[in-house]
Structure formats: structure tokens, C-alpha cells
């Protein structure tokens, strides 16, 4: 089996998918080729399992585009040659690991049958995704919803992989081994390519001082690229007496250091993906535009700290309109310093106390892999149970829909119910007395939502809409507004659903659209999700008492 993976976005997005590619190769015994930008070729050494590399020299293309002595189609012909080369290789599968305009057009240009391509593209005059999971990813982006799954899980499911394999031995060269300290240490990645995504050096220094109050023994390695070393040495010179070492290294050495570290502390950077496959927990500071639920640390028992703010996460493209980065200010240096220590010590009780104390200001999420191998970030602290259950029901319901199972066949949700039960027993430590009222309230709300949403969907269907008068539409509009006012906060996909309904009422939805259009599909899925969530809740409520 011969497979091409395409990753044409940022370095971090590519590194995130590293263990996915490795696991795919292990499962399928495939010959794996990868297409990336030439400027990221320096990361090749982290992918020894890749058989062949293809690259696009973006910088060269940019140069050619502005040179008047070059024919305007030179870049075009180069791309055409590349596409022809890919076609001539007869790949069994071409998989795009990025979901953007570029990958959409690139896959559309390939003359390949749909069953051999995974990723969004136009094929035979229609949009094809190659997998319902990629279609879900597309819908989430288009309707500004919040993904119920980590990106790796979306691609893992699309590729039919059961789990991501753990890496036990890195097979390091002697020179790399020599750079790993013999004593215990933790790693910190301080810098990020975006100001809003990391602390200032001043705040990092405070963090380290607070950490040192609890731990004077372990070494702290500040990881950086060689060209950042001088700056870090100068910035951190006044705390060098705190057993701190600035460690300039390449990606392979960084991976080795992280693999052997007690903890990695980092904002949303490519470095955190080097911990995937290792047993090193990550304390991730999810600041600015960082979307922990899609791209968070994909390791067991990592911890994500995120300010409890309405604007968090913000848009990647937008500048922060506030005088200072509030999402950074709300996460104090003392909190990070102390959390680092307890996290390294795996003292989850102490972390839970911190999470409860700062519940209003900072969200603490503990990452884990559920029984079905899906990544899940559960919020810590008192009062988080209802929120975690909602997220868990939501994720489980989407699994049923995306695995294209019969949503009316309730008997077949046993696995999902089992996963949630196990979470409740092993992680949430919830008594039936605590749980029952939460679930009963949840079900009552869902039942109301379900009945009302069905009515709404019927009234908004293209065929019904054409028969409505302006007065009728006004009434529907009011009903929709009221419905969303009551339910908006209950389900993370509802804002997108609301937008669709309003567009439909205002007539922006083309009356000629058929039932299987993207909008109708999203509306139907919403209804299914609500139904499945309620059914799962019922199943858990009824038998949780018996199990305990």
C-alpha cells in the first residue's frame, strides 16, 4: 500500500500529525511519502519512518512570481509537473492533513478516484471529503462551531486507526544522548511566534521563582532554537542562580529532552507536539487564539490552563483589542508556578483544590484518553461535573453520527454509555446522589430542545418556507429567538445552529436547495445529536445506581 500525506500549512500542524503518520504506517505496512513545504525539511529527522519526501519550494515560488524575467506561468508549470508526478506514482491513498483552501484546490486538481483521496475537494462537480469525519471538520469550520474532537482524533478516525501508538525508545544517536541531563529536570518552552500566545520574560521569571518555593532540587531547562539563545541568556541572566539552563537545540534533541523530562511547560507551540507518544505530561498555557480542544496536548494527564473569558480563544487573525492581554493577566505567575510543581508530582488532589479555588477565573482541563481511545479534556474543580458530562455526551453522540450508525437504534449505544460510566466511576468519583439530579435536569432540557428543534426544522425546511407568508415567518423568527435565548449555553454547536436558522428565515437559504445540502445536513445532525445525548443520559442515569 502506497500513501501520500500532504501537509501544507504551518510546522506545528505538521508535527502534530507525526505520530498519526507513524501509527498509520505501522497498521497498514504502507510505503509513506509526505509532501511539505521545503522550508520545513529540517524537521525530516523527526520522521525516520517516512520513505520519501516531496516538497514545494514556497520561497522560490514567491521569488519567481516577482521576477520580471520569469514567465508568469513558470510556477504554474512547476505545480503542474508536481501534480503529474503524484498522479504517476499511483498512490493507493492521498491524505491531506490540513483542511484549508490550498489543500482543497490541490486535491481538486488531482485526477484520482474519490475512494483514494481523504480531504475536501471538488470531484465530478460535487464536493467530496473522503470521510464523514473530514466533512464534520469542514462543517465545524464553516459554521464556526466548536469541535467535539481533537484534530488528531478526527484524522485518526478518518483513517480507521484505533489509537496512536506510544513511543518507548527514541533510538537516539550518542551525541543526542549526551545532551540529556542525568539528574531529574523539567523543560519550559517560553517563546512563541505570537505575542498574545505566551507570557513576557518578566512573568516567566516570576513563574520560576514561585516554582522554586516548592522545589529547589530539579533542574529547569529552557528550550529554545539556536538563534534565540543569546536573547534568552540575556533575559534570564538575573535568575541563572535558580538552577536554570538555557538549552539551545534542534528538534531531535528537543524531543529527546522532552521524552526524558518530568514535565514540559509550554504555551501553544509546535514543541508541545514533540511530547506526543511519550509519557511526559504537558502543562499547556492556552492563551490568545489557542484552541486547546482541537490542538491541545495529545498526551495522557496533561493539563491545560485557560482564562475563563468570553473572548477566549480569540481569532488567530485579530489583534487583541484590550490594553493588555487579559487572558494572560488572569492566569497568575503564582498559580502557574505552584501548578507546575503539583503537576510534576502528579498530585491531582492539590491541582483539583487549585482548580476549585480559581474556578471563576481559570479553567483547568486534565487530558485523558477514554476507554474508546478518544482524547478528552475534562474540566477540574468543584462544579465541573455538569460541564464535563455535557461535553462527553456531545462527543459520544457525534461519534455515533459520524460512524454513520443508525441513530434510532438505541441498543447500539452501549459502548458510548460504557465509556461515560467508566469515566464517572474512575475519574469523576461521582456518587449516584450527586449525579441523578444533574442528569435529570439535563434530560428535561434536552427533551424540550428535541421537540422544539424538530418543529423548527420542519418549519425551516425549504419546501415549507416557500409556502409561508411574511407574517408566518415573523412568528417563526420570534420562536427561534426565544428557543435560542433559553438554550444557547447548553450546547456548543447551538450558536452555529442559530445562525443557520436565522439565515433560513431571512431567505438567504436558497429555496431550490435539496434536502442533502450542507445546511440541511447540519440541521439534521443537530437534531440527532440532541436525541442521542438524551438517550445516553437516560441510559447512564438508570444503570449507574445498579453498578455502584
Amino acid at each position, binding site marked *: 500500500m502506497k500513501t501520500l500525506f500532504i501537509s501544507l500549512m504551518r510546522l506545528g500542524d505538521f508535527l502534530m500529525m507525526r505520530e498519526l503518520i507513524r501509527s498509520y504506517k505501522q497498521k497498514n505496512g504502507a510505503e509513506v511519502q509526505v509532501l511539505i513545504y521545503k522550508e520545513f525539511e529540517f524537521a525530516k529527522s523527526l520522521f525516520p519512518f517516512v520513505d520519501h519526501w516531496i516538497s514545494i519550494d514556497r520561497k522560490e515560488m514567491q521569488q519567481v512570481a516577482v521576477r520580471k524575467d520569469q*514567465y*508568469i*506561468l*513558470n510556477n*504554474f*508549470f512547476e505545480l503542474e509537473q508536481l501534480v503529474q508526478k503524484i498522479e504517476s506514482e499511483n498512490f493507493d491513498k492521498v491524505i491531506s492533513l490540513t483542511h484549508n483552501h490550498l489543500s482543497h484546490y490541490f486535491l481538486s486538481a488531482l485526477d484520482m478516484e474519490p475512494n483514494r483521496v481523504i480531504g475536501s475537494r471538488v470531484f465530478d462537480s460535487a464536493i467530496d471529503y473522503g470521510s464523514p469525519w473530514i466533512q464534520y471538520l469542514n462543517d465545524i469550520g464553516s459554521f464556526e462551531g466548536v469541535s467535539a474532537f481533537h484534530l488528531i482524533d478526527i484524522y485518526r478516525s478518518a483513517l480507521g486507526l484505533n489509537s496512536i501508538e506510544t513511543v518507548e525508545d527514541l533510538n537516539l544517536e550518542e551525541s543526542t544522548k549526551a545532551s540529556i541531563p542525568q539528574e531529574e529536570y523539567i523543560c519550559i518552552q517560553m517563546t512563541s511566534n505570537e505575542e498574545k500566545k505566551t507570557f513576557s520574560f518578566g512573568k516567566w521569571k516570576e513563574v520560576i521563582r514561585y516554582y522554586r518555593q516548592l522545589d529547589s532540587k530539579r533542574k529547569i531547562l529552557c528550550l529554545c532554537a539556536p538563534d534565540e539563545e543569546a536573547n534568552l541568556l540575556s533575559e534570564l541572566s538575573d535568575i541563572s542562580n535558580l538552577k536554570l539552563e538555557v538549552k539551545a537545540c534542534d528538534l531531535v534533541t528537543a524531543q529527546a529532552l522532552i521524552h526524558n523530562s518530568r514535565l514540559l511547560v509550554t504555551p501553544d507551540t509546535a514543541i508541545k507536539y514533540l511530547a506526543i507518544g511519550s509519557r511526559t505530561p504537558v502543562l499547556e498555557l492556552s492563551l490568545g487564539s489557542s484552541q486547546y480542544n482541537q490542538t491541545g496536548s495529545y498526551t495522557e494527564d496533561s493539563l491545560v490552563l485557560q482564562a475563563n473569558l468570553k473572548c477566549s480563544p480569540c481569532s488567530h487573525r485579530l489583534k487583541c483589542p484590550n490594553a493588555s492581554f487579559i487572558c494572560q493577566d488572569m492566569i497568575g505567575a503564582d498559580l502557574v508556578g505552584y501548578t507546575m510543581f503539583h503537576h510534576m508530582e502528579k498530585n491531582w488532589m492539590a491541582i483539583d483544590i487549585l482548580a476549585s479555588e480559581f474556578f471563576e477565573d481559570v479553567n483547568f482541563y486534565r487530558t485523558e484518553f477514554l476507554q474508546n481511545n478518544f482524547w478528552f479534556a475534562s474540566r477540574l474543580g468543584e462544579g465541573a461535573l455538569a460541564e464535563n458530562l455535557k461535553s462527553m455526551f456531545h462527543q459520544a453522540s457525534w461519534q455515533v453520527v459520524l460512524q454513520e450508525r443508525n441513530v434510532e437504534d438505541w441498543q447500539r449505544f452501549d459502548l458510548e454509555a460504557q465509556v461515560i460510566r467508566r469515566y464517572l466511576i474512575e475519574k469523576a468519583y461521582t456518587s449516584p446522589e450527586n449525579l441523578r439530579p444533574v442528569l435529570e435536569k439535563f434530560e428535561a432540557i434536552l427533551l424540550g430542545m428535541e421537540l422544539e428543534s424538530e418543529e423548527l426544522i420542519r418549519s425551516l425546511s425549504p419546501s415549507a418556507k416557500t409556502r409561508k407568508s411574511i407574517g408566518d415567518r415573523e412568528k417563526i423568527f420570534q420562536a427561534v429567538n426565544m428557543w435560542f435565548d433559553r438554550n444557547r449555553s447548553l450546547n456548543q454547536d447551538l450558536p452555529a445552529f442559530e445562525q443557520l436558522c436565522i439565515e433560513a428565515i431571512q431567505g438567504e437559504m436558497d429555496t431550490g436547495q435539496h434536502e442533502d445540502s450542507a445546511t440541511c445536513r447540519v440541521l439534521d445532525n443537530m437534531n440527532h445529536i440532541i436525541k442521542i445525548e438524551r438517550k445516553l443520559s437516560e441510559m447512564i442515569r438508570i444503570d449507574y445506581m445498579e453498578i455502584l
Partner: protein
Amino acid sequence: MADALEFVESEFGPIPVLNGRRLASKRKPLAEARSWVERQDRKCDEFIVFGFGAGFHIDELKKTKDAKSFLIFEINLEIAEFAKTKGYEVITNKEELLNIVEQSFKGGFQVLFHQASIQQHTEEYEEALFYLSGRNKEGLERALNRISLSLDSKREMENKIFLDRELVNYSKALPMDRNYNLLNVLAEILK
């Protein structure tokens, strides 16, 4: 005003003198030609050389392995005649040149400039350059037609559009057209 052309003799053959300026070194034309070839920042293996001059640089270019094929464009007709005496076919008309390019250069190409020649006719060579490389409206139309995309002539196009990522929006094409998709890929890469 018509060009004044004369030739001066040298150890290596006749050197054209156009409007009072020699088009190659009289003493070391071969070394000068070798240096010209080395200086070229070649990104393609198919070239169009603007300016024949005394032809020494063409002789040198022929010797290089990576110059797969090339065409010569010379505006001065008398120099074009002189080129024939040295065994070279020279094209003097930009439309004719582009026709040949489109038929024989299946991929892209690059223009190399013989500075001594083009300094005498900067405007004419520049116009030909923009036309050939697709960096004026007419040239861009020709280029896009070559890959089966026709331009929407109602839209205002300026020379700058070749730098503009919106390039593809100036063309009329079906979304499933392979070339349309490739142009969009390019636009995304050049963002």
C-alpha cells in the same frame, strides 16, 4: 531615428558598434561573454536571450549544459542579419517570438538580457519583455489562454496583478477545471 550601425574588426571577429557604442569588448570579448553566462541567475533550462550583440555570449551560452534550448530576440534588423552570418536564427518580432515559445517551450522560460544591446532600445525591449513574460494585460491573456483560461476583459487589470493573489479571480473558469485549481493553489502559496 534610425540606428547607426558599423562594425569594428577585432582579433576574434567583427564587433558591432550601435549608435557609437560597442556591443562587446574589443580586447577580451570571450572573457566578457563567459563572465556574462556565469552572472545569469538561471532558474529554468529554457531561455530567451534579449540582444544578440556580437554573439560571443550566445556562443558561450550554447556551451553550458543546463541551457537546454534558447531563442534569440534582437530588435535591430541589421544585427539580426549579422547574426545569420554567424549561423544563428534571430527573431525580431515579439508576436512571432511568443508563437514559437508557446509551441516549442512546453514548460516555462526565462529571459536573459544582454545589457549592451538592450540599453540602446530600453523601451522596446521592456515592452517585449512584459508581453512575453505575461506581465501586461495582453501577455497575461495569452498566457492564460495557453492553459485554457480566458480573461474577463471587463475587469480592470494593471501590471501589478501578477503579484496579486487575486490573479485567478480575473479568469473565467469552471471550479472543476484542473488549471483553475492549480492557479488557486498557486494563489494560496503566494499569499
